[in-house]
């Protein structure tokens, strides 16, 4: 019985609506399949691993398999008697200082996304970086990381990274490249660099920008272009509209009582999101709320993590958000802005009224955040609203741009493309980036690039762009090279290498130095000398050492600036958005896992279930249920998306909460040259994305093809059959009746067991997860994967339900199909007191420890999978195949040496990071003391930007975890089964506006 051969039953959306209408408002649902009770879903429900027997489902194969098993069983005992092969110990010849074998070292560095830095600490075992942690001293990290940073370890060791310098596809040398480049540059020198073009991404690095400036001095007529597919052009343009200059906007989210997001996913994407998430969650914690809980309103076209935690969320097509912003600005009293004569749809009017009153009530304590992808008009209106509400200087600050040379990047690339078409470009140097793949479709970049006589590409991979370049140079990864970069607030971090370039890569700084006639200068010299020129004097050495050590350069954050609205501001934004065309609206977004495509070859990110769709290994065209019904489409139908004469084929995904008549597609997929992991995965939304509408436009046509494309979704696996697993209430209800959460389900008394309970005299570990803080950002999932050597399994295995993540984030819905409430729930091993898995294991491979952990012993496990069968939480993972790559040498360097690399046929699951517990216990015992509260931080907890996960000793009543567990919000999953889980949750509370709640 193969899933592939089954005809998936079409979802009957009107039946779903009827069911929802008939059910009580408190009913949770999880996915459309569950609601519709399709056959597919029922099959998943009754078999956890739906395809586990299909490896040998032909009778002959099965018979042979049993024979082989019998033989191996007979030989198994003999196998136990083999002698261990001789192993060698290879000590240093001269040991470096500070290296203690067996003890990791941590180095501060920074990782950039779109040029903007987040400070990290990298764990290094004898020179091998193995794990990324956040840098508490860094303003953009505060100790947390995003999934991209966590996964960068895998990118570093990726065996598919380019490893040789190549000229027209043939292996070449650095010397040969230098000779060719020098010849071309001499030629350019004579022309003052008229034909020289340099293309970079967004640059915040002071060193790199100084190098570029001095190169432009050498070649005065050369040009420096910048392009990021996920550019922040709209924010810059909005700032120009409002203030007449480009400034950076920063928020103090913790000071705001009321926050309105105009399609901004500020809690999980964009510069500073980790900090904003921390600040936001500090006002969602009831346990320390001196200033009261905040309230979040979100208007958005596509469901985001920020929208999912909003108190009020309004789905609206992207194009209508500017109209809404104008109406709101009119209500708030922004001078000169009159609300539009008509609002696009009913119901919105009262919504706007309530939000405006709420904002006005909280003057100077509120915040309006425009989304980076929204129009310049929305940005300008948001600036004006923040001014009118008196937020500037309190919750909103303006600073200089963190980019060294802030330009309109789309225009910059347009200029380059035009120059190339005109034949003005003779030498093009591309420093990172992949414009052939991700440039706007109307630039026709690949064809125009063909006219450039010398094209040089520096990149991590041999990608689409390097394929069309004469020279490809392997780029050094951020963990292999010296550089510097600014964070969202301007703070400079020195990026230091953790390991020598694995594949002989060069950094952009080193290549630029070579092009400026200084070949062979090391990245270290370049960066250090730049800063020496900035900080001359005797104090430099200590300044430098301190900056490198701390990962932040003191006093480099930008100071807030005073900016005032342009007097003609109202006229600037008055242009009505009359782009109401026919057809559907298409919205482009970066992907929450592989971003703009740069992480396409990263298996951890490819297999990371996307926060809201739970899809892996694919992108899809997101449609709202109503739109899908109108068009007669269902999930996994393949459609052709046509926009302005361009088209791409894409599978459909029906997403509750999506704005009607809006189709969202995510960038980054459909790579043709990426590597073994990323090539040919998904479809490229860049094919229909143009420079005039980089984020959204109207006029999309959807043509049904009749084909179907199976998507690997982790959504309907592990279903918990509608038990009240996520408990929520509102702040008012909870304040009136604090035990409302406890009343939602009865727990059996501990005396239900025949046996006396175990007395935990030492430690008793436990975790509590605050669902009010969790935004579903997925950092914990990747952090767990990196820490615990969790393998990836591939799309086919995921669709069989065999993904290996020890920690998953379940997503539940409640209420209305068109705009449901969304809940994220991280689920890891519960370490039950009465663990159902332990009693069924025939070989005692899973057993309880004296500290309350449910231990899993891999070397004992024989793979019966009884434990997984008996686990009500479905957190156990089985290695059906040899998922861990044990042969690729470079991947061996990546693994955490403190955790066993599991092999085929073994069950595994979350251990509460027992390696970290043991390490801390040993350290404490050597000092003859107890482990302090907060000394052990699990990998998921460390990565969490909102500090939603708290680990600690339940036996210590003063510990944070014990205090949180005493909260009336605390509850366990499926406690009615008397499993007595150690992982518990704090119920989610909403803080709705009573005005809107009544309607």
């Amino acid at each position, binding site marked *: 019985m193969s899933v592939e051969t089954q005809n998936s039953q079409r979802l009957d959306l009107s039946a779903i609506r009827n069911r929802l209408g008939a059910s009580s408002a408190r009913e949770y649902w999880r996915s459309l399949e569950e609601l519709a009770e399709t056959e597919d879903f029922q099959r998943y429900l009754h078999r956890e691993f739906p395809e586990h027997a299909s490896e040998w489902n032909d009778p002959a194969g099965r018979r042979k398999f049993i024979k082989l098993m019998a033989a191996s069983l007979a030989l198994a*005992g003999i196998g*136990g*008697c*083999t*002698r*261990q092969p*001789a*192993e*060698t*110990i*290879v*000590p*240093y*010849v*001269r*040991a470096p200082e500070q290296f*203690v*074998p*067996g*003890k990791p070292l941590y180095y501060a560095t920074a990782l950039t996304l779109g040029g903007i830095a987040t400070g990290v600490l990298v764990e290094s075992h004898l020179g091998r970086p193995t794990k990324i942690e956040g840098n508490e001293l860094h303003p953009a990290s505060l100790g947390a990381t995003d999934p991209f940073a966590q996964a960068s370890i895998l990118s570093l060791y990726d065996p598919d990274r380019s490893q040789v310098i190549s000229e027209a596809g043939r292996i070449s040398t650095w010397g040969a490249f230098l000779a060719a480049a020098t010849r071309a540059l001499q030629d350019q020198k004579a022309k003052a660099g008229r034909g020289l073009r340099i293309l970079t991404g967004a640059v915040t690095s002071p060193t790199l920008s100084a190098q570029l400036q001095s190169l432009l001095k050498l070649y005065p007529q050369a040009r420096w272009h910048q392009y990021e597919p996920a550019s922040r052009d709209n924010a810059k343009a909005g700032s120009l509209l409002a203030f007449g200059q480009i400034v950076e906007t920063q928020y103090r989210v913790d000071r705001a009582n009321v926050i309105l997001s105009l399609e901004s996913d500020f809690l999980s994407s964009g510069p500073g999101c980790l900090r904003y998430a921390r600040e936001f969650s500090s006002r969602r914690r009831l346990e320390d709320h001196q200033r009261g809980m905040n309230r979040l309103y979100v208007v958005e076209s596509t469901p985001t993590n920020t929208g999912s935690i909003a108190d009020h969320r309004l789905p609206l097509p992207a194009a209508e958000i500017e109209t809404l912003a104008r109406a709101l600005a009119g209500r708030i009293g922004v001078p000169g802005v009159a609300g539009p004569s008509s609002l696009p749809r009913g119901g919105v009017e009262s919504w706007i009224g309530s939000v405006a009153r709420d904002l006005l009530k909280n003057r100077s304590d509120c915040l309006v955040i425009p989304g980076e992808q929204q129009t310049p008009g929305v940005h300008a209106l948001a600036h004006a609203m923040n001014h009118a509400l008196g937020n500037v200087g309190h919750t909103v600050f303006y600073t200089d741009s963190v980019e060294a040379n802030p330009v309109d990047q789309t225009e910059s690339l347009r200029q380059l493309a035009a120059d190339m078409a005109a034949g003005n470009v003779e030498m093009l140097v591309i420093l990172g980036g992949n414009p052939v793949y991700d440039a706007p479709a109307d630039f026709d970049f690949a064809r125009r690039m063909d006219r450039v006589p010398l094209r040089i590409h520096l990149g991590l991979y041999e990608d689409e762009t390097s394929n069309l370049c004469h020279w490809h140079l392997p780029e050094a990864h951020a963990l292999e090279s010296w550089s510097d970069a600014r964070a969202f607030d301007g703070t400079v971090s020195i990026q230091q290498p953790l390991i020598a370039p694995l594949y002989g890569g060069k950094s952009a700084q080193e290549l630029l130095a070579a092009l400026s006639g200084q070949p062979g200068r090391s990245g270290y010299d370049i960066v250090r000398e730049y800063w020496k020129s900035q900080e001359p004097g005797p104090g430099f050495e200590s300044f430098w050492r301190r900056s490198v050590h701390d990962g932040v350069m003191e006093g480099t954050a930008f100071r807030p600036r005073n900016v005032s609205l342009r007097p003609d501001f109202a006229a600037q934004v008055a242009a009505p958005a009359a782009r109401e065309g026919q057809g559907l609206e298409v919205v482009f977004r970066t992907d929450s896992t592989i971003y703009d495509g740069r992480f396409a070859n990263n298996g951890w990110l490819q297999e990371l279930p996307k926060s809201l769709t739970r899809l892996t290994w694919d992108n899809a065209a997101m449609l709202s249920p109503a739109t899908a019904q109108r068009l007669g489409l269902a999930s996994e139908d393949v459609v052709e998306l046509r926009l302005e004469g361009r088209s791409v084929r894409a599978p459909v995904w029906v997403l509750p909460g999506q704005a009607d008549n809006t189709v969202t597609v995510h960038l980054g997929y459909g790579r043709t040259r990426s590597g073994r992991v990323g090539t040919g995965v998904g479809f490229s939304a860049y094919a229909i994305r143009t420079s005039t509408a980089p984020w959204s436009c109207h006029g999309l046509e959807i043509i049904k093809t009749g084909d179907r494309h199976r998507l690997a979704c982790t959504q309907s696996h592990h279903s918990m059959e509608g038990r009240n697993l996520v408990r929520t209430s509102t702040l008012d209800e909870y304040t009136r009746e604090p035990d409302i959460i406890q009343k939602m389900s009865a727990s059996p008394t501990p005396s239900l067991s025949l046996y006396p309970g175990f007395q935990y005299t*030492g430690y008793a570990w436990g975790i509590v997860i605050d669902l009010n803080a969790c935004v579903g950002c997925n950092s914990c999932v990747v952090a767990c994967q990196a820490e615990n050597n969790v393998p990836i399994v591939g799309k086919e295995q995921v669709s069989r339900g065999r993904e290996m993540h020890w920690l998953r984030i379940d997503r539940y819905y409640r209420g209305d199909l068109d705009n449901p409430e969304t809940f994220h729930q991280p689920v890891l091993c519960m370490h039950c007191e009465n663990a159902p898995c332990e009693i069924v294991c025939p070989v005692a491979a899973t*057993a*309880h*420890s*004296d*500290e309350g*952990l449910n*231990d899993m*012993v*891999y*070397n004992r496990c024989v793979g019966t999978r009884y434990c997984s069968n008996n686990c009500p939480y479905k957190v156990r993972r089985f290695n059906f195949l040899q998922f861990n790559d044990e042969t690729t040498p470079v991947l061996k360097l990546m693994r955490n040496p*403190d*955790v*066993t690399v599991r092999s085929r046929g073994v069950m595994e699951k979350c*251990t509460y990071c*027992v*390696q970290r*517990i*043991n390490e801390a216990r*040993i350290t404490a*015992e*050597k000092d*003859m003391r107890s482990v302090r509260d907060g000394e052990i931080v699990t990998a998921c907890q460390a990565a969490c930007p909102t500090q939603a996960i708290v680990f600690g000793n339940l036996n210590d009543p003063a510990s944070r975890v014990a205090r949180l567990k005493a909260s009336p919000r605390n509850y366990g999953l499926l406690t009615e089964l008397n499993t007595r889980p150690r992982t518990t949750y704090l119920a989610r509370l909403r803080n709705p506006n009573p005005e809107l709640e009544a309607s």
Partner: protein
Amino acid sequence: MPQVFHRSTNTLSRLSIYGAVFALAGLGWAGLEINRSPYVTQAFVARSQPVPFSHKHHVQGLGIDCRYCHTSVEDSSFAGIPPTKTCMNCHSQIWADSPTLEPVRASFRSDTSLEWIRVHDLPDFVYFDHSIHVSKGIGCSSCHGQVDQMPLVWSVNTLQMEWCLDCHRQPELHVRPKDQVLNMNYQPPADQLTLGQKLVRDYKIRRLDYCSTCHR
């Protein structure tokens, strides 16, 4: 019809049936004993090394402290194998021309590591930590034997789980005062049990015998 078999066949067949039970049990016992024997565990088998380094000479003869070479034994899970530089600290002066030490000098000259054969080799799924054992009063010789009397090192224990558990279940039988940890000739006193129980209390030694103590 005459009997085909003699009457004694009955006894013989009974004997062989009952005997088979003992024979099988004996086979099992033999298998377990083989598994514990030096043939499998390589205990008491001196391993030849790239350089015939003698602990007997350096420890007993010269009185060099264990920690001169095994520097991280008090800090880390791994006791540490000295870098070639440590050898050369002395051997650039003493026995500087000895042909036996040529591999050491070659390593130092060419900057390539010496590759020592591991004698105490735990399976890869076991995570052992030297530092905690040393700081809780478990002597070097408790596990490694009297290394000061070994010209080439051999292990004196099976390093099997039952051997680990013997001590983990009853640490009071094996613990010694902290100042005796490095003493190669330490002999437990007659009242080890009394002393052990006192030390277990003083050093706050816990009976750690659950799986994740060593397996993770």
